[in-house]
């Protein structure tokens, strides 16, 4: 039902206390989510700026815009900021923080002060990264491979490493909070299999954060100790093995990619069911596949190390396991598609992002199978094929899911509706720009263009120009939502409690919600996603 809420003096979390102290000392998970939203948007912009420099350099085959040392810094800072300071926190820290207590009928997370601490820790880590950037950057690649990072690099490795180390704590505390909240604070009647799939996805993500992040933390500490004291742990001349760093690094960093994609998959599950007006197909399979991805994702890290002098036998086992980890993801795609089948599909903006996700994630995932094949990977490793693969997943997948979620829950978060016309337009621009940027990179990689090079042979120029042109369109697709979302906070139409006619406890509270979410604990008596085939109730 469309309708404007009458403007009244009802208190919601946004106007419950004014002033900077009420925000910086808040314990409200919803305000903390917005603090995170501001921070990660800033780092996304910075990471994007470095991408602009990369794509500008690659317009011409010669290394003429900048020297190779500077180029190394560009792709390193792009990767560090996008992965650690944008993608890893993004959906959990913004949407997860905001929605999980609402979705399970709780007043807040289990540990609200630790939640706020988590944001401060993120900010401190970010400041270290910003300092490193301002002081001249780091050029090791976001992967910090030894012995370059531990012995030979002359850039600000330690400052960046400290920033990432600190950020790891933020990630761990968020995961810890979610795990305890989901176990201990569900409303009466909300059994595990009545929970929204968004919550399942974040639970699986949190398990990965808990078990994986500490290992990269210690890997970073060891690089720091090596740089400071030359202890020899990664230096072959002193008896060390550089590949040990890769084991410790990838033990986390492979599961980290699942930290980045699982929450997005959780968003897609919510979007697909709501905008097909149909109960999701295979709820149990989707829930279990999230856990399967979390577990199996820890057993495949060696597929990043096929050509590193890792034992061939270990490589073969990692290859087989990497094929297996694709299965739960495929199960999800099948179930989403089956949900669409015979649904009453509504092409609202969040659904456009969901469609984009399903198509682009599938392409990204399938190309991962090529890379999982040990023999093929020997040829594709460190080429643009890998770059295209992970950008299809991270940008075509994770970021599309993030934007779809932001649009879907924007009325709940801000109490306003965004302008639908502009939103659909920018979703389409994003899709076009994305494919123009990254599809040519599959071809470039197949043809042999190496990654992390600032110059390349003449014959690769056409595809590189296409890619850079696409990047400019992609950038527009990101800037436009930034503008209209901020605009809508002041000038957007007031949103009703449930603009999409969706199921879920978060839609039972006003938009925006009051500080303590629920007047009394709701009781859950039915299965999730009970939709009928009527039209979505859209304003």
């Amino acid at each position, binding site marked *: 039902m469309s309708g404007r809420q009458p403007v009244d003096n009802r208190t919601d979390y946004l106007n419950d206390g004014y002033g900077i102290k009420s925000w910086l000392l808040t314990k409200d998970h919803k305000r903390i989510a917005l603090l995170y939203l501001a921070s990660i948007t800033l780092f996304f912009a910075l990471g994007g700026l470095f991408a602009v420099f990369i794509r500008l350099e690659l317009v011409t085959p010669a290394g003429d815009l900048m020297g190779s040392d500077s180029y190394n810094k560009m792709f390193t800072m792009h990767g560090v900021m996008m992965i650690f300071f944008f993608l890893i926190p993004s959906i959990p820290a913004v949407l997860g923080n905001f929605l999980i207590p609402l979705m399970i009928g709780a007043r807040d997370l289990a540990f609200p002060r630790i939640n706020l601490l988590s944001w401060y820790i993120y900010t401190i880590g970010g400041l270290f990264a910003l300092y490193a950037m301002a002081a001249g950057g780091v050029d090791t690649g976001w992967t910090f491979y030894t012995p370059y990072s531990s012995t030979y690099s002359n850039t600000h490795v330690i400052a960046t490493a400290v920033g990432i180390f600190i950020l790891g704590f933020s990630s761990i505390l968020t995961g810890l909070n979610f795990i305890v909240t989901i176990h201990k604070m569900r409303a009466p009647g909300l059994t595990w299999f009545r929970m929204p799939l968004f919550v399942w996805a974040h639970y699986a993500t949190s398990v990965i954060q808990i*078990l994986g992040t500490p290992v990269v933390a210690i890997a970073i500490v060891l690089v720091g100790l090596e740089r400071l004291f030359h202890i020899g742990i990664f230096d072959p001349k002193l008896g060390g093995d550089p590949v040990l760093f890769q084991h410790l690094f990838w033990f986390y960093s492979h599961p980290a990619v699942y930290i980045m994609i699982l929450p997005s998959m959780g968003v897609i599950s919510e979007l697909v069911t709501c905008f097909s007006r149909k109960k999701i197909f295979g709820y149990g399979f989707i829930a279990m596949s999230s856990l399967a991805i979390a577990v199996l994702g820890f057993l495949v890290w060696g597929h990043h190390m096929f050509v590193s002098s890792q*034992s061939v036998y270990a490589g073969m086992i990692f290859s087989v396991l990497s094929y297996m980890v694709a299965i739960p993801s495929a199960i999800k795609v099948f179930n989403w598609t089956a949900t669409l089948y015979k649904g009453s599909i509504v092409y609202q903006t969040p659904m456009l992002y969901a469609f984009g996700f399903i198509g682009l994630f599938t392409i990204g995932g399938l190309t991962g199978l090529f890379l999982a094949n040990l023999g093929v990977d020997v040829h594709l490793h460190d080429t643009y094929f890998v770059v295209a693969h992970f950008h299809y997943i991270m940008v075509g997948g994770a970021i599309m899911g993030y934007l779809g979620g932001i649009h879907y829950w924007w009325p709940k978060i801000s109490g306003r509706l965004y302008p639908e016309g502009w939103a659909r337009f920018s979703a389409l621009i994003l899709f076009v720009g994305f494919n123009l940027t990254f599809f040519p990179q599959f071809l470039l990689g197949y043809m042999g263009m190496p990654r992390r090079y600032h110059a390349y042979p003449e014959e690769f120029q056409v595809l590189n120009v296409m890619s850079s042109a696409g990047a400019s369109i992609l950038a527009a697709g990101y800037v436009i939502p930034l503008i209209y979302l901020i605009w809508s906070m002041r000038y957007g139409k007031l949103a009703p409690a449930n603009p999409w006619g969706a199921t879920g406890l978060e839609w039972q509270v006003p938009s925006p919600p009051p500080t303590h979410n629920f007047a009394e604990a709701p009781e859950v008596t039915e299965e999730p996603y009970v939709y009928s085939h009527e039209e979505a109730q859209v304003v």
Partner: protein
Amino acid sequence: MVSHPEPKRIYFAVFGALMVLTLATVLVARYELGVLNAVVALTIAVIKATLVVLFFMHLRHSSQLTKFAVASGFLWLVILISITLSDYISRAWLPLPQAW
């Protein structure tokens, strides 16, 4: 979660066992047992850790969830160490590539 406080004698009994095991680990270390030295030392350490976890940390009175979580933690450590070591151990199984 503990509902009733443990009787003191349980704690003292566990303490006694930990002392005995500490002594044992030192004594066994005096003998040359080859690879068994490490095995025995780790086994004794695992037993001591299990006693601390079950009794001092009250795991035996805790929920199934907590027990499962702790078991998973140790399992994950085993996964990290064993798979990493499997790389190093199996590197020598294949000869170095020769010229074609």
